[in-house]
């Protein structure tokens, strides 16, 4: 049987998620035996033509050209997997979705006409059908390996659907929210990091993104009423590396919790 072909594509991103693949020091050469690395421009000069069996897509869509490019990539890929907060939830650069980027660029940039950008940063799934989404900023390299193995073997990846809180309790950490009064997004954040921040005496800041069906509102009420955070602080805390997650849109557009761009001061 032929090895399945793998392609890695980049949109607006920091390269950290695809770097996770090269950071698999112990597994890299084995991965290369398992799949044919057909198109991975940051690692190889050799670019084989598509179509590809598996496409890993990093980064968010922020230009018109990229809106077209993702369509072509979808057509040329059997399985498309978005990796990381940029690809699955717009990334930190999606904070622009809540600000007036146009005006800002015009006001500041010496040669705004040279800049080619959309007013929004959106996840891949907003543009094409995505077969699997792996969360994290950055993704966990062992989860990536599991996802690759699963898709090459034709099974569903075994990736936890729990929250960071569940991982935190399993790790036996003392709760930093209770014991140290830290602000922690663990209850609403996708598992995957192994509750890294609480094990370093730090509250989770949500880099793995908001979990499906998370009770964002309760945590918000808690942070505001019990921890004295202003609405603006609470919104900023949740709206960071996964700024365009749909769950957060609800918060941002709800006048109780946040403000739309028109309402923002300045």
């Amino acid at each position: 049987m032929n090895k399945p072909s793998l392609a890695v594509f980049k949109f607006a991103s920091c390269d950290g998620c695809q770097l996770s693949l090269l950071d698999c020091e112990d597994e890299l050469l084995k991965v290369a035996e398992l799949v044919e690395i057909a198109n991975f421009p940051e690692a190889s000069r050799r670019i084989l033509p598509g179509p590809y069996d598996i496409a890993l897509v990093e980064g968010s869509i922020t230009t018109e050209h990229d809106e077209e490019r993702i369509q072509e990539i979808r057509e040329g890929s059997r399985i498309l997997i978005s990796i990381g907060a940029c690809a699955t939830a717009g990334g930190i650069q999606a904070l622009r979705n809540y600000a007036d980027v146009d005006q800002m660029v015009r006001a500041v940039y010496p040669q705004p006409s040279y800049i080619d950008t959309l007013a929004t940063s959106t996840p891949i799934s907003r543009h094409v059908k995505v077969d699997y989404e792996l969360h994290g900023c950055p993704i966990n390299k062992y989860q990536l390996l599991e996802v690759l193995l699963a898709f090459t073997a034709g099974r569903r990846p075994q990736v936890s659907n729990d929250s960071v809180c569940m991982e935190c309790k399993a790790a036996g950490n003392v709760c930093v929210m209770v014991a140290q009064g830290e602000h922690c997004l663990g209850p609403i954040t996708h598992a995957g990091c192994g509750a890294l921040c609480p094990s370093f005496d730090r509250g989770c800041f949500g880099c793995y993104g908001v979990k499906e069906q998370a009770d964002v509102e309760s945590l918000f009420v808690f942070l505001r009423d019990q921890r004295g955070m202003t609405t603006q602080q609470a919104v900023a805390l949740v709206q960071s590396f996964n700024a365009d997650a749909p769950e957060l849109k609800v918060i941002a557009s709800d006048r109780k919790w946040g403000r739309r761009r028109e309402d923002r001061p300045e």
Partner: protein
Amino acid sequence: MAEKQIPVRAGIKSRRIKVDNLTRVEGEGSLLIDVQGGELRELKLKIFEPPRFFEALLKGRALGEAPDITARICGICPVAYMMSAVHAMERALGVTVSDPIRQLRRLLYCGEWIESHVLHIFMLHAPDFLGYDDVIGMARDHGERVKSALAMKKAGNEIIRVLGGREVHPINVKVGGFYKLPEKAALTALLDPLKHGRDTARDTVLWASSLDFPELTRQYEFVALQHPDEYPMNDGRIVSSRGLDIQQTEFPDHFEEIHLPHSNALHAVRKEHRSAYFVGPMARYQLSRDQLSEETRALAKEAGFLRDVNNPFESIVVRALETHYAFDEAIRLIEQYEVDGASSVPAPARKARGVAATEAPRGLLFHQYDVDERGLITRANIVPPTSQNQFTIEEDLHDLVSANLELPQDLLTARCEQAIRNYDPCISCATHFLKLDIRRD
């Protein structure tokens, strides 16, 4: 990004080289070279990484978020962004960290230098010298060398993981210090792989120095930090090989960025003569090689490299020497480390400006922030190494192409790509900053 068609005159001496997607660089770029009538007419290194507007989105965020947010500019050198950010904020707030914290930050930086340099030497650059498409092809013939390189990279990454929590975008760095100090035992467990890595780095230097280097010697203005007591990482004055010697706060008076239409990145130039300059390992080596450890200097001598290096293709050797030094330094820092005092010092907000430059693996990384009394960022300015080197890369290519016009197309193309990779250009870094420089209010 669509490429404009430039008409090419027929004739043996007219040719056009177009590399649409530069490979084995971090990020995306392209190169256009137009030769007509035996003369180089046009050369453009284009960067088409979409801008992500970091300086703009930092505005209004809490100052304590700057290290984690700016780390997301580059997944290959997040520690560098975190270091420049925390130092800039601490200067704004008038905070001085304890000596153990200072040493641990240096250790963290050693981890990133190792990880990033080894990635570049073996995965991105060496395949050019040996004629492979990538490290996987190279591993077929040089399996042991690649395996031991991966072990070196892992040893560097392990420092970042133990001290920072994870390799990409560590979570333990904060303004004022760390969230949690590591146990001595967790660090000493790293010593064996680090000592092993240092031996491999030694082999790497000797091996790299025996490679075939294409000819290209240029007179650069090297710019780097310089410190009286140590090889520069987190601290020092900004000096150049042409006599510049300034405080970090004076950087904006001597360097400026200009915006050219063909690139999404700004080009940094020396303000005085609008000229190109060079940051990175070769600049540090030129200005501070006396500060390397005795072992690294002896190794440099053995390799025939304890001298000025003006051929950018030889940067692979300098990177290997810095890797050796980073192992040596990491071992020293771990051996002398004692858990001592608080993991961080308090950093109360005040209205001020803070500036810091540190030495990212690719060179000088400058951050400047204005913060207000509530602890919010009101203005941010970031100048990454790749934008500073972009002019120099173009000038290198200009000389290289002019001197090698007779080379067949594929060879010349490969040579140009290799010359760009001499700078380990991190294109994600270079374009983050279209959005910099928020001159509002």
